[in-house]
């Protein structure tokens, strides 16, 4: 088709133009202070010591809350597409895998927990921790025999919404206690944040596993 012969180069040409323009603009971005200074100033009231964690869970906690919501929604969306056998259809069997997993999973759990805990003061946090835990879960899924029962649907749902619920509950509590929505009393901030992080990391891990499965397995039914 003639049109196609024209459109492809045209798309390329226009993409290049756009790239050029973008490059010019980004390279020409004026130096600006950013928010490093305000973050640094507010660190002592944040309840944590790592600025990224402070931003994630306190200053822009609402973002993170919604992000948990996105994750959960993604799972729900996938579930809503109906029952389907998860991918892969057949777990990979073999002694090496089992052996590796037997060692790897505890390590992953410990690492994940550590990452969550360390998030308040150093690089790390719920997402990182959750991701590691999730990876462990994925491995587990790959190796589990088909017949093994999954946690019940309610448990899955509870685990899935744990993070969001915890965040929402804390946020609403702040609203009701006069600290504003998503506000923590400074004294409690650290504990609350840690609690939220823990809950969130469980949810994130579970979510990742479920996302990996890409749909509710029929096996869920058996588990009930």
């Amino acid at each position, binding site marked *: 088709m003639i049109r196609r012969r024209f459109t492809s180069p045209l798309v390329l040409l226009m993409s290049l133009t756009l790239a050029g*323009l973008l490059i010019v*603009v980004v390279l020409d971005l004026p130096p600006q202070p950013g928010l490093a200074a305000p973050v640094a100033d507010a660190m002592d009231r944040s309840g944590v010591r790592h600025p990224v964690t402070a931003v994630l869970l306190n200053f822009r906690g609402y973002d993170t809350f919604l992000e948990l919501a996105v994750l959960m*929604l993604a799972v729900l969306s996938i579930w809503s597409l109906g029952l389907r056998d998860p991918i892969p259809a057949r777990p990979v069997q073999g002694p090496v895998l089992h052996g590796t997993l037997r060692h790897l999973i505890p390590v992953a759990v410990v690492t994940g927990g550590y990452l969550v805990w360390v998030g308040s003061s150093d690089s790390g946090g719920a997402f990182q921790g959750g991701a590691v835990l999730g990876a462990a879960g994925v491995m587990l899924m790959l190796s589990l025999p088909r017949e093994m029962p999954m946690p019940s649907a*309610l448990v899955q749902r*509870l685990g899935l919404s744990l993070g*969001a619920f915890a965040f*929402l509950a804390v946020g609403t509590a*702040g609203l009701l206690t006069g600290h504003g*929505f998503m506000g*923590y009393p400074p004294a409690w901030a650290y504990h609350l944040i840690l609690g939220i992080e823990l809950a969130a990391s469980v949810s994130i891990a579970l979510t990742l596993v479920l996302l990996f499965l890409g749909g509710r397995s029929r096996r869920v039914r058996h588990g009930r």
Partner: protein
Amino acid sequence: MPWMDVMADMALAPWLVILPLAGALLAGLWPAAARWWGLLTALLTLVMALLLALQVHAHGPMILDLGGWAPPLGITLVADGLASLMLLMTAVVGLAISLHALGYLAGEGRGHWFWILWLWLWAAMNALYLSGDVFNLYVTLELVVLASVALVALAGGAAPLVAAMRYLLVSLLGSMAYLMGVALLYGAYGVLGLQALGAQVALSAAPMLAAVLMTVGLLAKSALFPLHVWLPPAHGSAPAPVSAALSALVVKVSFYLILRLWLTVFPALPLSGLDVLMGVLAAGAVLWGGLMALRAPRLKQVVAYSTVAQVGYLFLLFPFLRAHPEGWKAVVFFAVAHGVAKAAVFLAAGTLQRAAGHDRLADLGAVMRGRLKTSFALGIAGAGLVGLPFTGGFIAKWLLVQTALEAGLWIWALVVLGGGLLAGAYVFRLLGPAFEPGPADRGRPLPAVMEWVPLALALLTIGLGFAGTPALSLLARTLAGGGG
């Protein structure tokens, strides 16, 4: 009123996010009771939206720093006239959709998924309307997209799945463009708050590129011609309550965001030039959507293309923004009027579809004659779409034409009026089957609520015909542009 004073410093805005979100979470936990959570949430949200609108109307815009962190560090919730009007519209239409879904989804095995996703969508939209932070807006946008896509795919079958896929990809494309804009803005100014950005944005390359990327990204999401192709299949093939939610509400979300950006963040950027381009696209949408609606063989497709056409009106926003300081209000009122009317039309279409078992216009006559209430709702709400008097559509059209003429932009007035004619043509085409001779047939038995809800919404369209003044005075409480 004394209780208004009490209300003055209550933070109502967060509840509009908390309530539907909590509802969504609870519905997810107890799917069997999802519909009751949904109804409860809908009712509470409506009450809250009403209270918020009254509060804003009485006391002006409310700005809430989340977590007590003031900008630029924290995120703000902004409940001003514009936001509270959109919230109210969403709540009213949302309640209607919920009630209708009660009947529409009765007996559906997977009906609870609608409720869960719908409450998520609602929460996401409310969060978006209230958000005062460009990045937070991105997150809410994604929430909206995921929920909507899942809702579209809910119908199952090849057509809805393909439509959902296309919708998702276009939306993601739009989101990415938007996010790039956010990055550029942060790169240039180091802040994320709408007000803060507005205060800083000046005429330079980075904000220009950011504005364009964000706007075009959102245009793709709001299906402005010629980026509309994903909409008709998606809205046309989804279950009726979903179609109603998408066409009446979700499309407005990205429009709202564009409006918000240009009103608050980019007032420093010149609109001359852009207004012509957007005007042309808007006119193209009105014409194209109208023509396609004249041709589509199925009821819901017609209505979906009608949305394409009516989105065109929304983007007369740019010429109006440039030419008239109050111009955008007309467009917002139009968005509200269209939201209510379009929801009514889609819900009525859903009722007819359920009763007849299909929605082919040619064979719909008997059921339309048998289901008088629904046909009526279709008629009245259709009149609202056309902009016939006593409906909100008329007031909206009036405001649009008035604004256009006041600003001397008679050509856009012509677009509005001409679009009304096309709308008339396709709306009356919808109603035509009801007047063919032949027997009346009520079709399959349906719960009464499915007939009453569209009718109630249609009557609300008439009510909107008298809501012009309060709506405008609410809109007058909108936060003005920061730097402008």
